[in-house]
Every structure is written in structure tokens, then in C-alpha cells.
């Protein structure tokens, strides 16, 4: 499809100077200019967290973190794609938490670094979804998992906050742990449970109509 005639802007992506229309995202700009781009590309809608970039805008010394598919070109912008970090060292298994009284104990065993948060704000600043990350970590450390989890509704697990954290807290995994224990221990919908119970008794079998 043709685009309407647009003024091109000049940007630098991964060290390559590119002229492209400002309505394109950084990923589309690479493709537009003929550069292949396979890794760090995912949903192209801002929910998979693959296309991690660092951005410096013209006339600014500040470097910000963003998702490449969500960032449109601006004149003089410098962009670098980042590789995805190795997975976190934190591991846990929900089925091994004996009951909901033990969640906080288990949390501090799995994420011992969480209490060391020095409130440097690196996580909040690096989050492309503007999540209040450090506040979430603080809530989780106090055992307020439901509230902590609510702060991470928009989290796409891009792991920027994990990269930014000097204490290796893996804040996004703290957020996801908080969300998962909330569902695992507290989501008990009576409409679902009742339906399962009726079906357990062998009722509500589907009859296949033969033509």
C-alpha cells in the first residue's frame, strides 16, 4: 500500500542512519530502509515485550527505555535494540506452598533481595508501561500480594526493570508472583465450582446429534 507523501525524518537505529516517515515505528523503519530485523520482534502491538530499545531524543542527554513497536520516529532520534536478558535465577512452584498462611514466608525465601530495595527508582523509570514497580515490590514484601499484583496489570514481562535493578530483585517476577498467588489461593468462583460439581456427578453430558 502506498503511504501519503510525508516529510521524512532522519534517525539512527543500531548505528545506521535511516530516513523514514515519522508515522513508522522503529521496527517498521528498519524494514522500510531495507535492513532485516528478525530478533526482538514479536506481537507488534506492545504486549509481548520483545522489542526492547534504548532511545535518546535530539537535544537531550537522557536515555529512556521503550518498546520498539510502540515508538514512532522523531527527527534526530537515536535508537538501540537490546538483546533479551537471561532468565531470572528466582524459581518457585505454587504447588509447593502448603497454604495461604505460608505465602509471605515463601515469598521471602524465593525473593530474598526484595527487602533490600534501595528505592533508586530505576525500575519505575525503565518501565515502558509506567507501572509503579518499586511500590509493588514494597507491597509484596509486606505480604500485600493482591494490592501488589494490581499494580502489574499492564506488565508485559519485558524485563527492563530486572535489567535496571542493582539489587537483582527481578521486580516483574515479584509482580507476577503476587498475581499468581492471589489467583491460586483466593480465586474461588462459586459459579465455576458449582458447575464442576454438577459435572463431577456425571450430569450435563453433551449429546451429539447424529444427522
Amino acid at each position, binding site marked *: 500500500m502506498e503511504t501519503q507523501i510525508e516529510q521524512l525524518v532522519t534517525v539512527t537505529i543500531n548505528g545506521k542512519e535511516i530516513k523514514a516517515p515519522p508515522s513508522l515505528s522503529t521496527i517498521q523503519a528498519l524494514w522500510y530502509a531495507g535492513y532485516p*530485523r528478525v530478533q526482538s520482534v*514479536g506481537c507488534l502491538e506492545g504486549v509481548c515485550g520483545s522489542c526492547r530499545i534504548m532511545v535518546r531524543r535530539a537535544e537531550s542527554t537522557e536515555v529512556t527505555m521503550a518498546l520498539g513497536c510502540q515508538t514512532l520516529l522523531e527527527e534526530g532520534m537515536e535508537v538501540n535494540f537490546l538483546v533479551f536478558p537471561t532468565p531470572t535465577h528466582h524459581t518457585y512452584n505454587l504447588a509447593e506452598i502448603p497454604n495461604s498462611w505460608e505465602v509471605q514466608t515463601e515469598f521471602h525465601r524465593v525473593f530474598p533481595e526484595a527487602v533490600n530495595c534501595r528505592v533508586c527508582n530505576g525500575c519505575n523509570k525503565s518501565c515502558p508501561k509506567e507501572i509503579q514497580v518499586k511500590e509493588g515490590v514494597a507491597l509484596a514484601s509486606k505480604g500485600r500480594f493482591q494490592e501488589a499484583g494490581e499494580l502489574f496489570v499492564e506488565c508485559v514481562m519485558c524485563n527492563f526493570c530486572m535489567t535496571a535493578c542493582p539489587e537483582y530483585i527481578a521486580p516483574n517476577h515479584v509482580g507476577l508472583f503476587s498475581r499468581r498467588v492471589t489467583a491460586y489461593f483466593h480465586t474461588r468462583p462459586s459459579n465455576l465450582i458449582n458447575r464442576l460439581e454438577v459435572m463431577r456427578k456425571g450430569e450435563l453430558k453433551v449429546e451429539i446429534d447424529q444427522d
Partner: protein
Amino acid sequence: MSNAISYDEALKNYQPMAQREPAVEELSTEELLKQYHPDHYDDAAVTLQVGPNRGDSCHKQLADMLQADARIDEADLAGAKTRKTDILVIGGGGAGCAAALVAAKAGARVTLATKLRLGDSNTVMAEGGIQASIEKDDTPQVHYEDTIKAGHFQGNKNLVANMVSDAPEVIRWLIQQGMQFDLDKFGDIMLRRAGGTSADRVAYYRDYTGLEMMRVLRESVMNSNIEVLDYSPAVELLANQSGRCAGAVISNLKDCTYELIRANAVIIATGGIGRMHLNDFPTSNHFGATGDGLVLAYRLGAKMLDLDSFQYHPTGLAHPHHLAGSLITEGIRSAGTYLLNSEGKRFVDELQTRDHVSSAILKECAEGRGIHVGDDSVGVWLDTPGLELRNPGLIEQRFPKLLQLGKKCNINLATTPLLIYPTLHYQNGGVQIDENGQSTVRGLYCVGEVSGGIHGRNRIMGNALLDIICFGRRAGAHAAENSRRPGHKKISIEHLSSLRRNLTMSKMPMEQKGPMLFPECAKFENDSDYDGLRKHRGKKIHTT
């Protein structure tokens, strides 16, 4: 004759109104589809010349891939590393993760290979929700009937009956993995209605159902003993002497080498074909949705179904251009949003099935009642301001992802409608399977969008997320139970010899290589980083 008008003019004419007259539709669903659905375009389908579905109708772009030459031959495998596992899962979306988790829990050794990263999939983008009949007035029987009817009575009844009966247990399993759903004040699961169905049956988490599901399943896999190989697309399946599937060849994008994975069973969960951009439609699909699993399974002899049937989701974004094809959840129509043509009139029952609504939009545009942006974009209005007048605050509360999309378009959804046009969304057909996800090739399972027969010729909202978890779990359990067998004596890619012979005998072109792996725009085929995985004029160029 034509009332087609420009975007700016239409926007000027547009007046938010709470109520509008319902549509009077002149064509029956059948007539509408026949005249306007892209599956029925004159030159859309061709007849397959080789393979298990020889003689069947298939979309021409997909046919090119199914009948393409392989990317590798025996010489590429000389000296390749070999890895052994009980079960190889190909694909890292919802279906692949569910299969892997259940198989691993049953004690099998599981390796999961994915083209990009774990979780990079269409699952993560799903918005609407997941169907399960749990309301008191609803039953699995009604769910079954809705599914069969929406699929125009072409779905496999046994598969559908199994799926709807599993649905409540699937929701419970997801909660046990740590997935949240939107709950009412009593803690009950809230449900919304899918187009073309007769009960509120779609469970959801905001319009982030897929994101919530995928981040939980990914975390679950990463905290298990499942071996995950990322950036490792499969390029061919392996078979033993008797034709049983015995593993796969993967290409490692990190070091540009091939690796053989020997397995007692293979579960393909590679998803759909949106990025083939059939009939030049935009797509709502993930970057990796290039139909690789269909090609692999077809070459090894797996029978396919309904290869000429695809779903075009009615509400893809049509403007601005750089976001064209982005999905707008059906949940917004389910909440009562109208569709309006250039005259500001409703033209379809918005809660009809997706194929019906999409065809109605294409009809409006074809008959000159569309709204044009420049020369190449056209669409109709999604009347969010009307919804806002009827239900103030609902959009903000329930549709955070849509709100984000509005921001990106610089459009205030409460006062300005969005221009929408159908977007290629889903592959209705695929590999023929039984209730355990087994294809017609022994040792080969196919689950999720790559499989066919469940949704007939049209899928309803919320049945895809149900399908992937339901059949993912079934295949994982069945494969684990049957994977304790002696290893294969000999594994090979000998099936490619007969493929090449058949292609030559049918005078088919051999230039095209499959599977596609990446969309054309990514320029994988001329990316110098991946020279090691390609041949140039018959001579392999080695990097490093």
C-alpha cells in the same frame, strides 16, 4: 451513485448519538458470505497437486507453501548435533505451554522449541476471553450447539463435544496455574457474550485475557524442568523407518546451525498463518504466524481439513495507516457498540458471527458506503462515542488495551469513532486431529490453531483460547502416557525424496522454500546474519 466520503468529511458529519435504528439486512447470511466473504473470491482457491490432500481446495498462497521445496537436504545434517527427549513440543504459545506442562507433570522428559521467545505468540494478543458454560442458565450442550452452528455445521462433533465438556475444568486448571479472571463482588467469574451465541459464556481478564494467560503459563514453564530452546524454528520433521514421526530438525538462529532432536512424540503447536497476508489483507496476527507447522505436518503425510477457510475479524483498525490491521476486541461489540456506514446508519446486527459481520462491512465498502482515507484505505465507523453515551465510563473500566490503542491513534474514543476494516485473524482449518490431538501420522500431535476440524468454517470469540488449552492438555497427557517406548533405530528426512519426486512429476516450481519462518517484511531471506542457514546457488556459504 456512491456515497463514499473522505475521512475528514465523515468525521465532520459524525454526531454522537445514544440510540440509532437497528439495521435492516437484505441478504441472508449464506448469500452475504457467498457474495462478499474473501474465502469466496474468484481466484482465492486452487486445487492441491501433491500430498495427502491432493485434489482438495486450498487457498493459493497457502498451497504455494504446502507444495514448496524443503529448506534442507541430507547434506545439511552431516555433523549436526543430536539431542534426545521423550516429547518435543514445537511452538511456545498457549497450546505448546499447556501441552508441555501437562506432559512434564506426568513424568515425561519434555523439550520445547520455539521460533522466537517463549510466549511470543497469538495467545499473548488475545483480548476477548475464553468460553466455558458456567452460568446457571447455560450448559455444555448449548455451548456445543452454538459452536457447531457458528461453524456452519462443518465442525467435528466429537472434538467439539470434548472441548465444551472440558471447558470448566480448563478454567480451573488456569486458575491453578495462577491466572486471574475478572470477578464480581461475590467472587464469581464474570461472563460476556460472544457474537452468534445464546448465553453469556466468555470469561475474561479486562481486554488482556491472552496477556494474563501467557505470562502465567510462561512463568509456569520457566519454573519447571521443561527444556526450552528459543530462537529455534523447526524446519523439518524426522521419521523412523516405518514412517512414525521421530523428532524434528531445528535451525538455531543464535549460532546458525542445524540440530536434530530425537523424540518419541512430537506436538506441533505453531499457530496460524496471518502473516501470509492472504488476499493482501492486513492481519491482527503475531510476527511469527507464518503457518510453519502446517507445512511440516503436510510433508510428513498428515491429512488437513478446510484449507480454504479463514476468519477475517470484523474490527481491525483501518486508520492510521501504520497501525492498520491491529485488532479491536469483539468485547467492545459485545458491550453494545454499533457499526456505522458513511451515512451514519447501522447496517448489520453487530452481534452476528464474525464472518457475517465482516462480509457486511465489505459489502458496505464495495457498494460505496465506506469512509475513505487517501486512495488505499477504506472502512466503517466503530461507534464508541455512542457506547460512552449509553454506558458512561465502561470503556475506561473494561477496555484498557483499547484505550491505549486510542491514545496511539491520537483519538479520544469517548468523542470520536474509530475507522475499522476486517483483518485476517484466524485459520479455521488445519491438521486433522482426534480427541487427543493426534494427527493421521503416528507419533505426531497437532494442537491449537494449527489443527482443524473444531471450529468448522467460522470460529466464535473465546473458543480459540479454550481450544488451545483443552487440546494442549489432552495431547500432553496422551503423549506422556505413550512416550515410554524404545528409541528409534534410525531417523531420517527420507520423506523429502518422495516430496521432491512428486513435485517434479507434477511439474511444480521448486524455487519456493518452506516453511516460510518469517514474514517477507523482515527480510530473513537476505539477512546476512543467517547465511549459515541458507544455500546460495547450490553452494553453502559458511559463516564464522
